[in-house]
């Protein structure tokens, strides 16, 4: 057995033992997660299938030789999807490679073992690929299946889609791992201010790029030229995502030779990428590892220096023990690059979203579409909020981890602890999401009633989603894991995300239904509409109260009954 194989063997065993330990999990949790995952997959499939069916009808001329407009858009959509996936995998692998190659607890043990750095890298690389790609497979498979069914593709298409997947995900994973290793060599030498500066410049560049390219004029061009122009970069010959999309589409059309060409092109490039990454690891990993370890040992954080150092003073108005707990949470968050670097992504998403609203859509002139756009806007904002609470708030209790005895021995109740987490969540996520709603509503120039309803929705969902995440985080804590990304991807984290999705779906569906029926003139009189409005607003409040208090109560009961 080679050394890399030994590590992978251990990882497979760990995975198998973890799956086996599911039987010790709460039956309800396992059932809810399994059923919800299947339902979510079916819902995604139905949405893609409906969308592809709808698109296919455009420009269809019943000819077998020429592609209709809808088919062109569908094929472009696959290219865009592949490109988006490529960059998502690139970014997520940079972060995952950092935490897996440098920060995992077992690394000190593995590094002192007689293993060459390239071999160590390959073993950890496979782990990174597996960890980063399961979600994309889960979300991408309904789209591929829907496309194949709508296009009436043969079995070759599905085989090709599976065959292209591994080489496709290997390329961004290899690039991401190299980026992580280079950053580890470069960043520790930079002062903290320069690091933040680089981050801000990166987000700003993304914002300006999106601002320049995501023009409503282009998207609304009835001659399709604008969209063609917009999507042209996704068709670049230099992009592995393009090779994948072309290869899979060729397979859908039964052009096996062309599909095989792109498969070989992609696979050979994937091998070269992994080979070069392993070579880079042989050179870069150890100096970076040693520097990082050295920096950790040398890190000085004198009190009162920097905003984090002064946080304790800034929060002096807060009563103890809340001040101590909040200060600790903020400091731990700020000092963990894997945490705040992911937070930067959310700024990126918000920047992209705001950039896309630069021009007020022409459709806003129509009352019907205006209603839909405003409801979709609040849907997008609550989705960002749900992602924030699922990723950053849910793991808060678990992150107390093996230090839980410190809190357990302190003169404070678990009730105080979980409400501290709740208020920390509400105050921090509100700052971002309320700003996002205000900005987006301002840019869309929405009516007063929509403005008020949007603001109300984001405020109450801040409470509901915080209660859900803190409550479920306390109900299903994972004290064995220090990596928040892994805590979130566990059963409890998945359940929290699915329930969060369910909750915001209900909130958005209620107000969308009410507002769309109002535009369609379903209400007999204004008073009838106002009564419905009050009912919906009250219903949203009740649902949010239940979503806040029930999980908090269950979580508190679990902490009280647990032994540490």
């Amino acid at each position, binding site marked *: 057995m080679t050394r890399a194989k030994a590590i992978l063997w251990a990882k497979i065993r760990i995975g198998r*033992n973890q799956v086996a330990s599911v039987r010790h999990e709460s039956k309800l949790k396992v059932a809810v997660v399994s059923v919800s995952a299947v339902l979510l997959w079916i819902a995604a499939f139905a949405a893609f299938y409906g969308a592809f069916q709808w698109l296919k009808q455009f420009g269809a001329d019943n000819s077998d030789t020429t592609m209709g407009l809808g088919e062109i858009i569908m094929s472009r959509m696959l290219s865009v999807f592949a490109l988006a996936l490529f960059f998502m995998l690139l970014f997520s692998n940079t972060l995952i490679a950092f935490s897996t190659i440098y920060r995992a*607890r077992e690394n*000190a043990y593995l*590094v*002192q073992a*007689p*293993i060459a750095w390239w071999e160590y890298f390959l073993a950890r690389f496979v782990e990174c690929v597996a960890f980063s790609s399961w979600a994309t497979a889960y979300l991408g498979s309904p789209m591929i299946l829907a496309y194949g069914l709508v296009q009436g593709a043969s079995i070759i298409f599905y085989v090709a889609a599976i065959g292209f997947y591994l080489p496709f995900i290997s390329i961004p994973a290899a690039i991401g791992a190299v980026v992580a290793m280079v950053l580890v060599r470069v960043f520790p030498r930079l002062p903290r201010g320069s690091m933040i500066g680089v981050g801000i410049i990166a987000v700003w560049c993304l914002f300006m790029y999106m601002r320049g390219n995501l023009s409503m004029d282009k998207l609304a061009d009835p001659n399709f030229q604008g969209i063609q122009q917009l999507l042209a970069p996704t068709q670049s010959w230099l992009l592995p995502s393009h090779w994948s999309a072309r290869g899979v589409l060729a397979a859908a059309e039964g052009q096996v030779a062309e599909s095989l060409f792109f498969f070989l092109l992609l696979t050979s490039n994937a091998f070269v990428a992994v080979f070069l990454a392993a070579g880079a690891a042989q050179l870069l990993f150890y100096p970076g590892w040693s*520097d990082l370890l050295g920096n950790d*040992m040398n890190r000085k954080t004198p009190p009162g220096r920097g905003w984090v150092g002064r946080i304790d003073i800034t929060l002096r108005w807060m009563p103890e023990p809340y001040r101590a707990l909040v200060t600790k949470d903020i400091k731990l968050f700020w000092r963990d690059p894997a945490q705040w670097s992911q937070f930067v992504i959310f700024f990126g998403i918000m920047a992209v979203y705001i950039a896309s609203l630069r021009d007020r859509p022409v459709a806003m002139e129509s009352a019907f579409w205006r209603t839909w756009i405003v409801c979709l806007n609040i849907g997008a904002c609550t989705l960002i909020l749900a992602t924030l609470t699922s990723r950053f708030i849910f793991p808060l209790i678990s992150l107390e981890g093996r230090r839980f005895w410190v809190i357990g021995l302190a003169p404070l109740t678990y009730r105080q602890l979980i409400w501290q987490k709740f208020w920390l969540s509400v105050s921090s996520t509100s700052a971002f999401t309320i700003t996002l709603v205000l900005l987006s509503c301002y840019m869309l120039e929405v009516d007063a009633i929509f403005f008020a309803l949007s603001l109300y929705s984001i405020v109450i969902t801040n409470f509901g989603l915080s209660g859900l995440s803190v409550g479920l985080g306390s109900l299903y804590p994972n004290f064995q894991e220090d990596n928040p990304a892994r805590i979130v991807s566990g059963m409890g984290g998945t359940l929290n995300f699915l329930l969060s999705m369910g909750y915001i779906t209900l909130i958005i569906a209620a107000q969308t239904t009410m507002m769309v029926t109002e535009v369609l003139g379903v209400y007999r009189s204004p008073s009838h509409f106002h009564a419905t409005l009050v009912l919906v607003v009250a219903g949203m409040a009740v649902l949010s109260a239940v979503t806040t208090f029930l999980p908090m109560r269950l979580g508190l009961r679990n902490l009280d009954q647990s032994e540490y």
Partner: protein
Amino acid sequence: MIKTIGLSKRFGGKLAVNALDLSIDQGEFFCFLGPNGAGKTTTIKMLTGLLKPSGGRAELGGIDIQKHPVATKSILGYIPDTPFLYDKLTGREFMRFVAGLYQLPKEVLNGKSEELLELFEVRHVGDQLIENYSHGMRQKLSFAACFLHDPKIVIVDEPWVGLDPKNIRFVKEYLKQKTREGLTVFMSTHTLSLIEDVADRIGIIHQGVLLHTGSIKDILTLARTPGSLEDVFLELTRGENE
């Protein structure tokens, strides 16, 4: 067997280990003493290849660990103070994993793994997940795993944490017996009473500088007034600000 020549480590402006020159023979039981923050852990990390020295070099079995890390680590065993073990592996699976890392033949693994699990009294829990082990059991499993590949050198960082008196005695006698068979042991510890029973030679490090090396008898003669090893240690490492 272990040789350091001008081994140094600098963290920013702080010199954690300053030009450490050390030579430890085969079969020697060497104990490394020093107050907290003296540079013991940094030295161990450089000897095990976890940290890259800022200057000088470390040779284990005549091989430079920085130049030939794989070859050097093949003859090295390491027992950390807080044993990291994979929680979701069983004890037996962990032994198999270590055998894979050290590329041991299957037949060696089967016999020796069981023998060591038995010797360190963790065989009865060999099929339980490590997450269910106590600290002492984890420590014993890490000892068992350390000796699986018959290392020529063992570096031990404060090994007594979590072990009961019976196991402390066993580990002490086991390591001593191994040194008689040719194993070289480099141990960092604060438990001075235990050192007196096992150490062939002691090294005292303070503020990154190796102050003295010698047998216990030699070290005891360094005191201005006769006393125990603890008294001498405290006298030698008394801080300037005390």
